């Protein structure tokens, strides 16, 4: 009984996150009531626009559980989008092989990074930073122009991007003109949410998932326990880059374009989402549901800035950075307090 009632600092962080999300959303509903912020569709739009980020954040959480980090994700997404846009828009390749190609690229990218981090013991930050510039540069090597995928280029991909999955009718609401609006989601949301569920089960119930926690908690004792630390790290980076490629496809379905400057700073959003969701930077603690709320908070900030209309878009960046800073400081204060107690 006693163990259950005690709230440790990690669950406290998660609770703070959930409370923050609810408070932020409620404030948005009150302030932007006339602009329709309180409609269900606004919330669903946050999911639709951030489906890619959600996939990436799940992969980031896995890597951060091992105590590492992957800052190559934003550039990798730009590269994926560019491959899709160039392949379909300029070369006219069919869409299924291209999607498989993008996923394979994610696997290979993760394999190289994971090998360098896991087997050569190089700091993950330096490797993934090099990866970040490499992927961004490769995007420019493919094409420096801004490309878009039109209906003529690939009808199948276009139909996926515009496919609406309507929710049950009773959730509908009347808009300002008195017309019934039925809330809808896009296929990417289903993809992203199933990624969250799968990763949740992997982390909770598989040997690999538990190994991630063990390696991040204490590498030396994980090794003594007989875990293969190196291959666990390798797999974590492969998983991250693979999920990032899935995220890249979602992102591409959302934007239908490819350019060198795409998804700049997305790595920051993904890291912020994980950290806000209660993943410790030192590794060993965290969950994907926390990251889900992190992404929702991130999306809410963006939507608030957009709904306002007068604020510059850089405010969203600054707000995310400030939140990340706040949560990092909170984590480190908790850690210092714990240290002092013991």
């Amino acid at each position, binding site marked *: 009984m006693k163990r259950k009632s005690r709230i440790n600092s990690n669950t406290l962080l998660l609770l703070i996150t959930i409370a923050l999300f609810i408070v932020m959303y409620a404030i948005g509903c009150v302030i932007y009531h006339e602009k329709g912020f309180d409609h269900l569709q606004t919330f669903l739009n946050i999911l639709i626009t951030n489906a890619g980020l959600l996939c990436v954040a799940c992969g980031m959480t896995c890597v951060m559980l091992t105590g590492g980090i992957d800052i190559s994700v934003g550039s990798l997404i730009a590269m994926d989008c560019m491959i899709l846009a160039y392949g379909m828009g300029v070369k006219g390749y069919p869409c299924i092989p291209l999607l498989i190609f993008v996923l394979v690229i994610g696997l290979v990218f993760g394999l190289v990074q994971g090998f360098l981090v896991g087997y*050569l*013991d190089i700091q993950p930050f330096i490797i993934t*930073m090099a990866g970040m510039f490499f992927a961004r*540069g490769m995007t420019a090597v493919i094409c420096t122009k801004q490309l878009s995928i039109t209906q003529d280029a690939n009808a199948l991909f276009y139909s996926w991007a515009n496919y609406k999955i309507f929710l049950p009718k009773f959730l509908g609401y009347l808009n300002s003109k008195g017309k019934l609006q039925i809330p809808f989601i896009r296929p990417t949301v289903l993809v992203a949410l199933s990624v969250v569920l799968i990763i949740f089960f992997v982390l909770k119930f598989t040997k690999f998932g538990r190994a991630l926690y063990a390696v991040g908690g204490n590498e030396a004792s994980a090794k003594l326990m007989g875990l293969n630390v190196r291959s666990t790290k390798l797999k974590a980076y492969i998983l991250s880059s693979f999920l990032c490629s899935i995220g890249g496809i979602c992102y591409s379905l959302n934007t239908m374009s490819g350019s060198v400057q795409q998804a700049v700073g997305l790595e*920051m959003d993904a890291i912020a989402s994980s950290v806000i969701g209660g993943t410790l*930077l030192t590794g060993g603690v965290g969950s994907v549901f926390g990251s889900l709320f992190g992404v929702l908070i991130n999306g809410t900030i963006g939507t608030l800035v957009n709904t306002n209309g007068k604020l*510059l878009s*850089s405010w969203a960046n600054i707000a995310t950075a400030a939140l990340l800073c706040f949560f*990092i400081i909170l984590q480190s204060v908790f850690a210092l307090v714990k240290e002092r107690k013991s």
Partner: protein
Amino acid sequence: MSSQKWGAVVGFLKRVVKMKMFLPFFCLILVLLINLIKSPGFFSIDIKNGVLFGRLIDILNRGSEIAILAVGQTLVIAVSAGTDISVGSVMSLSACFCCMSLAGYGVSSTNTLAIPMILGILGGILMGGICGVFNGTLVSKLKIQPMVATLILFTAARAIGLLLCNNQITYIRYEPYKYLGNFIPGCPIPTSIFVTAGVILVVAILLKKTSLGLYIQSVGINKRAARLLGINSSKIIFLCYVICGLCAGVAGIVASSRIYSADANNIGLTFELDAILAVALGGNSMAGGKFNLAGSIIGAYTIQAITTTLFAMGVSTDQAPVVKAIIVILIVALQAPVFKTWFANRSLKGKSQVKETVGA
């Protein structure tokens, strides 16, 4: 050639390879050689319009920002085994702050200055210092991993710069403001070279004449041991980040003066990679501890030489990072502990074999 002589040559080569400055010089010479073969006119220096003109001068001139950043980055890497990835964004922020204060908020182009130029420049450098204080506090006081702490400013600084400039490019069309990044009338040498020399001189004096250099090394090698020796580790780490921030500020002002404007989106773009690459090329270990300032500076000019070569070969600005990223990975991989033990084992094996043959 007799085997003895051959052995002496090999021994000499081995000693050269093990020298601290081998890697930076080797890379620089390699790049210059490639250029010499590809374009024989590479080393010619003429005087056009009263100023020096030529590829080498261009490398020295354009490499200034990287060299200044590399100075700060070397200290940060040495002291905390982590890099400051915010330098590029901080450059952009300090340039924006400087131009904003010179032109006044919301003005996109100006011929007259709102405040004296020197005040604006000092303000810009100070802005870099403030960013350094922020990073330093997070790393030294709150014990956050350096890269994550600096990641905050990596995104935020550029966004704040955009806000300061009201989302536009602020032009300072005031002649003396262009001097810093270009030429002072009557002087044939680019001004940025003097600025770089000044920064290097100040930091070198700080390191040699005070015990700061020694402290940085001891904190970088073992933080706890340094602490037990009575060195205030967190203060030293803090100081290094502040110096790095100030360097980024100076680099930002120079970059802004080059284009006599503050372009928040493009100033200092991918410079963090260049700065880290310069330190790695300079033969410094990414794991902290001993450092070599001169190596980093030569590394910085090597990077610029590589960049210039790439541009001469028709590679665009966006594409150049591919090559640099590959070089970073190669160098860092060669420094990896796995490779080091492998090399050590190999040379040990070689020695034991020699002993065996001597014994037989």
